[in-house]
């Protein structure tokens, strides 16, 4: 008992009070692209990118493919790219994840979905399925429920059975060997239900987009309601995407 109290005293209170405003100091999050003109014929950023996330003329970056390696920062002769610590990297649509030049070039803000808010605004149960995830996304998704981020305070929790789940949170590039299991999990979920794609692999295949051992058919059949970018996404990115989607916290500003 005494030892337990000592632990309690040493641990203190760890939860982040305002998840919306929290910024992870030092985190390589949302990239920005300056409006500086590109040198004639330069495609250094395109060549450096390991996931073909960057297109030029004008320069734009797909957060759904980006793995935040920052090779573009190092290779761009004009210093157009910079990574900020902003962890909010989610959008409702695939196109909404495109970052364009300029200070307002970030992803489309997530609008609250009135229907989803009505259904899940006070309680959401999620089943996570990793289909080729490297354990990066899985660890960060687990962390969303730890003592720091404590998503459970909003009635949002992981469940063990798809039977109990409202949302299927997918990570990994969807391997061929997991294709059947992913569909079985989805089929076991009662309506209404929706899919969240977490991480570059789930969203676009990420670093594995060119691999033969994938079967991404499920995501073509069942489109995600929200895309949470990152490699892996910071828990704050995942947590805030859900809070905004369900209108649980008022949107910033």
């Amino acid at each position, binding site marked *: 008992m005494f030892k337990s109290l000592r632990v309690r005293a*040493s641990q203190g209170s760890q939860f982040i009070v305002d998840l919306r405003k929290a910024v992870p100091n030092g985190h390589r999050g949302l990239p920005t692209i300056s409006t500086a003109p590109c040198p004639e014929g330069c495609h250094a950023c395109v060549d450096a990118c390991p996931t073909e996330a960057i297109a030029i003329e004008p320069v734009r970056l797909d957060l759904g493919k980006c793995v935040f*390696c920052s*090779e573009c920062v190092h*290779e761009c002769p004009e210093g157009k790219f910079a990574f900020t610590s902003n962890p909010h990297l989610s959008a409702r649509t695939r196109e909404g994840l495109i970052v364009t030049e300029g200070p307002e070039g970030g992803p489309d803000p997530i609008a609250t979905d009135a229907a989803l808010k009505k259904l899940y605004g006070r309680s959401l149960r999620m089943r996570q399925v990793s289909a*080729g995830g490297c*354990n990066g996304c899985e660890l960060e998704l687990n962390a969303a429920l730890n003592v720091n981020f404590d998503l459970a305070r909003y009635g949002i929790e992981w469940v063990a*059975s798809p039977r109990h789940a409202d949302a299927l949170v997918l990570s990994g590039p969807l391997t061929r*060997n997991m294709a059947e299991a992913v569909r079985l999990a989805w089929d076991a979920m009662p309506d209404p239900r929706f899919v969240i794609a977490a991480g570059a692999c789930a969203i676009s295949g990420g670093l594995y987009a060119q691999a033969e*051992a994938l079967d991404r058919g499920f995501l073509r059949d069942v489109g995600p309601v929200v895309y949470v970018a990152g*490699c892996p996404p910071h828990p704050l990115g995942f947590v805030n995407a859900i809070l905004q989607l369900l209108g649980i916290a008022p949107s910033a500003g």
Partner: protein
Amino acid sequence: MSALAGACSVTLDARVASAIVPLDVRAWRADLLARLASGARIVTLYGRPAPSAHAGAAAVMVTAVVQLTDGRLEVTRAVMDAARGYHAMTADVTALHCFERELHEQHGVRVAGHPWLKPIRFEAGGRAARDAYPFYAIEGKEVHEVAVGPIHAGVIEPGAFRFMCLGEIVHHLEIHLGYQHRGVEPLLLRRDARKLAPLVETIAGDSSIAHTWAYCAAIEALTAGDERAPVGPEIEAARGVMLELERIAMHLAGLSGLAADVGFLQGASSYGRLRTTAINTSMRLCGSRFGRGALRPGGSGVRLDAEAGAGFSRAELRQNLALLVNDLAIIDDCFLSARTVQHRLKGAGRLTTAQATELGLVGPAARASGLTHDQRAFGAGVYAEHPVTVVSEPSGDCWARARMRIVEIGRSLAWIAGVLDGDPVWTPRRASTAAPLELVADRLVVSVVEGWRGEAVHCLETDAAGALLHYKVQDPSLRNWLGLAIAVRENEISDFPICNKSFDLSYCGNDL
């Protein structure tokens, strides 16, 4: 031909590939068995396609790497006709089972008389290969089977487990993996060798530093030629600190999971919160909680400042370490003295030293069963300057594997503090990936890094023109999964979660 490697913090061996004369298949088999019988330890055994002498016949170059007790690596090779193959060695040396299974699955090599040619990742044969395989079964009126997976109850990676039980007691556990197979190895060959770091970082995303260090050390050996130019003590020290932070963070994740699995929730949340401190320290050093971007061939993405400012200062790093040391002592004392923890972990999932040796276990799982191999003990460079005392526990149960983590976290914290005593300042430095990279032709490089889970092994070979001919990746999990299967025998099925968590193996690292 002796190795060409110079001083390096990781176990490294670089040789002229063509100077390793492939033996006749029978001679190779006898040679390897003799080496293993005389005290060498198998590090890896793998195949790659070789030019065939006969049209229509598939030839495979098989490479075996062994480690002598002083840490030196030795290589022995044979070229064989895949269809003719050779006689399995697994019956003589159990530790070879996974390599021979992989050789069979990846290259179609006939491994005659192998007791257990079970699919590893059900590669070319796909699901049909898995479905056709006669998995181990126990017959008997009272025996029942429990199938779990591939999707598990928690937020973790997938894999399938089938328990053969009599009542509550597990007689055998059949583990079949492969669900995470993404096809890493072909992708490594398809891209420019100097641009592979982001991909290598995701081979096992919880062991990014271990795998990326093995990759970087190999590429550095392949670009420097015979006189290997190490990247310099500053970068080596930063790599060492990142590797030890990864070890601390993942050991804390393991302890948190173990505490949760025995229902000791104060331990689960406390260790989880301290893991946050460890990974946030990595984030301050390199921008990623998982060490992504920290290591690059010939360079580093780690920043540590002398003074507080925009970046991360030595004082802040020391402060984080002090917090970990202080709070860990309190929670460790509470965790280890809790009767519920002792009752659940002691005696569960025991593997004897003889079993661990026979199965060829690596990493902390091996050391918790009394073995003492740890690649950091052989390193030159930063691990010679700051030696790591290898720790081992004799009892081989879940308790030993939990204690192993606690002790290793303490050693790693002390190790980092030792490096910081030199008042280092680290500046990110990267070689441009735009300039064409020339790899030394005709080389075979083996690099081995002791990650938190055990040894990550990367074998890279260049051809006569300096192009990358083969890239073999091996996560420590490949060797340890069978250890888990054997450890749960004669245990209650309800103890499986703690046995599994005490090994904490990678699914994607195994499945590649």
